[in-house]
């Protein structure tokens, strides 16, 4: 049962800020509602007003820019999943989106809403973190951009001020020889463990590598030592084997949190299992047109 609330339906950011300000803080932003309305139903949150962001054109749409992709925060998972631009510029994201929750959630849930909610067992943030994406926040006082790690501060907790709106996700274009991939294991509705890899191949060797983990830690984290372990290694699946082993060892330092999916050591192990296949996927993309 969703508790009663009033609805504001602004058309512009300024209207949105005014509507929010008029509530004396007793408001929340509404986009797809797949997370917010669920939390309200469960009795965890109640707001006098929901300010609906679906009418703001500036939050919608996917654009390719000189630097990469700009995805409006209110773009639905389905739109991202089926976008020709995303398929071309960031196939790993399109593939990730195909596996988010279920077809109904993807019809209405938005990428921005997903990130703003910061559910720790969620897909996109882990990949976006690896890809070096940033988010744009607009508030009554102005606009700012934060990296994913600056934005996601804790489980269900972000750097967004209550009156700020997440407006867009900006993903840098893949460099030459760069590949990005995401892998997850899910035993329940949400992932138990996830891993994302971004690596760049030059002259047959891994020149740069970023490894992130999600769902096993409180927030998606960059595992720097895991990325470092891959750098300089031969850029073929078999040659990378020992380096992947060393990268997995780097997961040993993570503060993995036990949950219903399993205890900490098991979830850490799952991330290790995922790393191998995810590195191979990233490698395949990196070397596809080489």
């Amino acid at each position, binding site marked *: 049962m969703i508790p*009663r609330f009033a*609805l504001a339906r602004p058309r512009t950011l300024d209207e949105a800020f005014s509507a929010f300000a008029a509530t004396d803080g007793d408001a929340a932003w509404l986009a797809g*509602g*797949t997370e917010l309305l*669920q939390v309200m139903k469960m009795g965890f949150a109640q707001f006098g007003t929901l300010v609906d962001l679906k009418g703001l054109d500036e939050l919608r749409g996917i654009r390719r820019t000189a630097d990469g992709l700009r995805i409006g925060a209110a773009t639905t998972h389905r739109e991202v999943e089926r976008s020709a631009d995303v398929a071309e510029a960031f196939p790993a994201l399109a593939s990730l989106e195909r596996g988010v929750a*279920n*077809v*109904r*959630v993807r019809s*209405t849930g938005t990428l921005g809403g997903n990130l703003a909610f910061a559910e720790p067992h969620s897909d996109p943030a882990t990949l976006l973190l690896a890809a070096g994406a940033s988010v744009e926040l607009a508030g009554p006082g102005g606009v700012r951009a934060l990296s994913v790690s600056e934005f996601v501060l804790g489980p269900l907790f972000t750097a967004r001020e209550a009156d700020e709106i997440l407006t867009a996700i900006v993903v840098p274009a893949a460099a030459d020889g760069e590949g990005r991939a995401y892998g997850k294991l899910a035993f329940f509705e949400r992932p138990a463990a996830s891993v994302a890899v971004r690596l760049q191949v030059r002259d047959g060797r891994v020149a740069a590598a970023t490894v992130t983990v999600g769902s096993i830690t409180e927030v998606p984290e960059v595992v720097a030592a895991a990325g470092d372990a891959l750098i300089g290694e031969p850029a073929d699946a078999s040659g990378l084997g020992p380096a992947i082993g060393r990268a997995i060892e780097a997961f040993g330092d993570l503060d993995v949190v036990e949950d219903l999916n399993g205890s900490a050591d098991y979830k850490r192990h799952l991330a290790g299992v995922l790393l191998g296949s995810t590195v191979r996927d990233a490698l395949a993309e990196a070397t596809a047109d080489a």
Partner: protein
Amino acid sequence: MRELIVTSLTVNGQLRELAIEPRETLADILRDRLGLTGTKVSCDAQVCGACTVLVDGLPVSGCTFLAVDAEGKRVRTVEGLATDGVLSPLQQAFVDEAAFQCGFCTPGMLMAATALLEDEPHPSRDQVIHGLEGNLCRCTGYEPIVNAVLAVANRANGANGANGANGANGANGANGAADRGPA
């Protein structure tokens, strides 16, 4: 004080205008205001799919979709599948395959499968399985549901379509509904 928002939507082809509280879900108004009780709410958490309805052709969870967000949109429910008393090919296939038992998941399952087939008229068995992964059925174990969807898909393909290997029941289904119009 209850705020009411006058909302116009098309439900199964009929234009409806309703004064809706913002908190009311699409499932609420379909069931309680329009008497379309075919749509069922089960998990109330967007997991089970029992409340699946189509909004502008896309499957959504009626339990969590705000009714006011259906403004100007076309909503389709299980009650809109049959035309002039003739079951849709998918409904007929559900009857033929006994793709239900208790029937509580069935309306949502039919809507999800309808969306699946509109999106991909010739799905493989694997596509059907993955396409319906988000719809739960506790009675059947899914086999007859998958077979029913494939029966319709194979009929659309012609009896020996690309999925012939999957469609052991396709031929039966085709005979059973040959006179029921195009899929």
